[in-house]
């Protein structure tokens, strides 16, 4: 059934090479996007919990904006609107970035900042789930606010939220497909291109689906391994109901972690 993937394309490659190049872009976007999102998300998440009203409001504004606008709209804003809103010289420079990178970077910012808002909420929930005594004990020992977060709060909060971060990992690799709307030839776009070129729609989509399934499994297993390695002794496996959506329910599933709101 997948024999067609080994046939030659018009440009002298095989169709499977198209798929693999699409997979490469998908992985690059998800991998780099994840680390940017994680870094920004942790900072914003801390901002949501500090007492300073200015930073609190700023962090909240960030989360509200980036969580409540659809990814696709954000993608268009980064790709179409940003170059027009910047000074002309800078906008023209952005528009002249050659093809794959001209789509890749807007898609990267878009996915990173969107996912960061979601991670920030998880981080906040993790920090708020810690007993108050932790911060109070740190204060009693004379630790500064920075040292308290660096050595007491964050190490515990981040370990607590690994299960709920699984859903964000799954979310970012699935959202990479939105980048096809601004012309990035990632996995889904390549599957469609193969379908258009060969009329073997079923084969093309099935191949892409299998690859996504494999990615989901790998992401899920990796996060489970990390969770097992860093879990705070005494907390129940996979039961940390600290996600913002998990007030009195927590999700468990055979495959894709607890990820009820990410598509």
């Amino acid at each position: 059934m997948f024999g067609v993937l080994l046939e030659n394309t018009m440009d002298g490659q095989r169709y499977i090479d198209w798929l693999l190049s699409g997979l490469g872009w998908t992985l690059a976007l998800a991998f780099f996007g994840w680390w940017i999102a994680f870094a920004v998300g942790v900072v914003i998440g801390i901002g949501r919990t500090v007492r300073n009203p200015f930073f609190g409001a700023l962090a909240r504004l960030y989360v509200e904006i980036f969580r409540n606008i659809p990814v696709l709209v954000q993608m268009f804003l980064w790709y179409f609107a940003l170059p027009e809103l910047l000074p002309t010289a800078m906008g023209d420079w952005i528009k002249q970035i050659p093809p794959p990178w001209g789509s890749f970077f807007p898609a990267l910012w878009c996915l990173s900042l969107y996912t960061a808002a979601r991670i920030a909420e998880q981080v906040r929930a993790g920090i708020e789930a810690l007993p108050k005594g932790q911060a109070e004990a740190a204060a009693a020992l004379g630790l500064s606010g920075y040292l308290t977060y660096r050595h007491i709060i964050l190490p515990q909060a981040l370990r607590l939220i690994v299960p709920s971060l699984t859903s964000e990992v799954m979310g970012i690799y699935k959202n990479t497909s939105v980048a096809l709307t601004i012309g990035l030839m990632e996995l889904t776009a390549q599957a469609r291109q193969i379908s258009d070129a060969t009329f073997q729609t079923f084969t093309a989509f099935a191949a892409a689906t299998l690859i996504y399934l494999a990615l989901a499994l790998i992401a899920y297993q990796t996060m489970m391994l990390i969770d097992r390695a860093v879990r705070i002794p005494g907390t129940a496996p996979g039961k940390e109901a600290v996600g913002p959506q998990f007030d009195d329910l927590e999700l468990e599933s055979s495959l894709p972690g607890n990820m009820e709101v990410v598509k």
Partner: protein
Amino acid sequence: MNSLDFSIIAQAWPYLWSGLLFSLSLTAAAFLVGMFLGTLFALVQHFELRILSPLVRSYVALMRSIPLILVLFWFFFLVPVVLGHLAGNGRPIPVGATYTAFITFGLFEAAYYSEVIRVGLRAVNKGQFEACQALALSTFDTYRHVVLPQVFRVASPIILSQTIILFQDTSLVYVLSLTDLLGAASKLAQLNGRLVEMYLAVAVVYLIISSAASQFVASLRKKYAIAGAHR
């Protein structure tokens, strides 16, 4: 930097409004179909029905593992083929992008809602089932009048936040060239060249609706949190 001209939005508003109505009706339809099928899926797994249960579980895992855009492409391709087979002559029956979108979103959301409801079912106190047995309620009546109402109530904040995400995800019908809110804006933008104003306006509309809905969910959550404390 070109000067922005937001008066264009006022002119475009009727068209954008019709797009927004499409987005909202797609959300509503997907919510109804998704909740109905999702409840069935959850019950199938809850009762661990033979054959059906593993099928449903695989379906849910599959839907949650692949991007919605790929699901849209799948259904756009598969629905006519399947309908052709159902009609008997095996010829694909074109159904158009609009019906595809409605079918896809209903079936796709069912997978996500079913997970929420499935977990909700497990959270119901055992005493509730025992009390129903003591009252000699049939299984149907137990679930219809006792268990499911509690599940919907306790899961309603999650179900609603999920629906807000669903509303945002309807923008992805752009890939089927449909005229939802974003589709309307992008079609107008191609005509009048006012990309920036159009997309900014659309972003603001989504932001207002989603934020308002999130605030509502947050207040609901607070209310139930207090009720939960006394449980």
